[in-house]
């Protein structure tokens, strides 16, 4: 039995099937009960999109230990690339999604070139700087990005499957499509942790120096991780552009980048694969539920974030595991 202190991507890991089935069951049935629960379809769509973004971000932070605080930039690049491709290219869903993946990966690669020899606070600061540069470009490059207004009236092209064409115009249809992509991304990221590349990422996270002395190309590992993470963030951004029918500079802003960090940490991304998903759901629900009662919801959420970082850095998943261990009569955290 691995102790609770063990990080992800190591030791005998928990099974994938059960939590995956549980998450999928909740998501796929959501349209049936979400109105009864006092919510609405669009919020479920947004949760799935942010969950995908948070998972892609946690590849970098949780698995490779690389703190990026400007990750909204790649989400935003994906959103803009999707918008530009379907508005000015051709209104094809696959083209738009491919454009988002490729553009976010390319921008991610460019940034990774400059930061992959750094680590810790220097790495973090450089990601912020590049994030701000991207945000600034989104605002100023009016002819391409539409400036402060952003790209408006981005269509939701239908899902072409050769034999059938399914409209994604309704939030419910787009939600199911987002869940399908989310499932693919989840499966990819899950098996990546346990693949050779995942082990090497864990080694780089744990001890860059020793990884070098084991002959690993540490720079290239960090570079590749950043590119994969940025590409998947861009895919989430493309879904966001569809959901919002627009792409605007705000998605690249520093506070949007901060939101994903808060989701991942509150959920428990440092100790659990599913932490970011829980954190994304928690954040979006808190935003709507707290936001309905007070303008200053972020103040309360920020306080909660500080409390988590101070008292339970393992987040919701960490707290849940501790409680379960207590119920089971074991010493919490004991091996």
């Amino acid at each position, binding site marked *: 039995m691995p*102790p609770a202190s063990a990080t992800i991507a190591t030791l005998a*890991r928990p099974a994938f099937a059960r939590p995956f089935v549980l998450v999928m069951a909740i998501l796929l049935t959501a349209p049936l009960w979400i109105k009864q629960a006092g919510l609405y379809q669009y919020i479920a769509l947004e949760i799935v999109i942010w969950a995908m973004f948070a998972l892609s971000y946690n590849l970098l932070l949780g698995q490779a230990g690389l703190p990026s605080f400007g990750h909204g930039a790649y989400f935003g690049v994906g959103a803009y690339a999707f918008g530009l491709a379907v508005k000015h290219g051709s209104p094809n869903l696959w083209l738009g999604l491919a454009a988002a993946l490729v553009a976010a990966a390319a921008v991610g690669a460019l940034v990774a070139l400059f930061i992959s020899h750094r680590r810790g606070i220097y790495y973090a600061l450089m990601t912020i700087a590049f994030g701000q540069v991207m945000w600034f470009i989104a605002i100023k490059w009016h002819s391409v990005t539409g400036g402060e207004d952003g790209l408006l009236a981005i269509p939701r092209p239908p899902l072409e499957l050769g034999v059938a064409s399914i409209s994604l115009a309704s939030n419910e249809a787009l939600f199911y499509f987002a869940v399908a992509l989310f499932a693919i991304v989840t499966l990819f990221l899950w098996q990546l942790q346990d693949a050779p590349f995942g082990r*090497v990422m*864990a080694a780089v996270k744990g001890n860059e120096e020793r990884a070098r*002395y084991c002959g690993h190309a540490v720079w290239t590992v960090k570079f*590749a991780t950043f590119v994969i993470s940025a590409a998947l963030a861009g895919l989430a951004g493309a879904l966001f552009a569809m959901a919002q029918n627009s792409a605007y500079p705000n998605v690249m802003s520093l506070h949007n980048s901060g939101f994903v960090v808060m989701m991942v940490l509150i959920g428990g991304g440092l100790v659990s694969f599913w932490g970011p998903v829980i954190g994304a759901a928690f954040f979006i629900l808190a935003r709507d539920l707290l936001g309905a009662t007070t303008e200053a919801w972020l103040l309360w959420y920020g306080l909660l974030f500080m409390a988590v970082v101070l008292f339970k850095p393992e987040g919701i998943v960490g707290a849940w595991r501790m409680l379960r261990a207590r119920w089971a009569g074991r010493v919490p955290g004991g091996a």
Partner: protein
Amino acid sequence: MALLEVSDLHKRFGQQIVLDGISLRFEQGQLAGLIGPNGAGKTTCFNVLTGRFAPNRGRIVFDGTDITGESPAAIARRGIARSFQLMNLFDALSVLDNLIVAMPALRRRAFRPFGAVRKDSELAARAQALLADVGLAGKEYRPARDLAYGDRRRLEIAVALAAEPRLLFLDEPTAGMGAEGAHQLAALIERLRERVTMVIIEHDMPFLFALADRISVIQWGQVIAEGSPAELRADPWVARSNLGAIA
């Protein structure tokens, strides 16, 4: 030809000269020792030979290839591994994974994004054999950080061995191990000497004199004496220093 041939190595940190013209030859299959007082330059010598610092002057030739100034990763890929005096493990990883990430078999497919490492029975078997070798069997699923001090030292050596080196540098392997631990370590090194050329920095003179084929004494960044343990014992300079007294 020697497996590693070091000639006229100089290393300066600012005004301080740490290595002042060191020349060493390590023959294939030999077990060599480096001794000398603290601050003599032994660990710096390891650091330069394994790529952490580039030398200011001098040449390092490994198996006929000039490797002077290469990066630690490049040198490691050539088959040179080291253990660290201050332990340098993958603390969050399991004992088993500490070894697996150090294996060339994993490194060669480091960028493969699929295929579960957990299910690779060949890697696991190799790691298990290593753990049995160093006396860590049964602890494979513990995170490295939870190991006791002596076990961490064993793992430190096992990680270096997992790289399947042709040349292995061990930096004070017995430090803090206790008599029983040092005894087991000596037995392990005896078993390894068939397979790998070793260079050991050690302060435990009886330990090293019992194992080494050849010992170099380093002081003031220079090699001041060299020879077999028997020759060194007979050396009047070494005999007059306390090094000889301990041996």
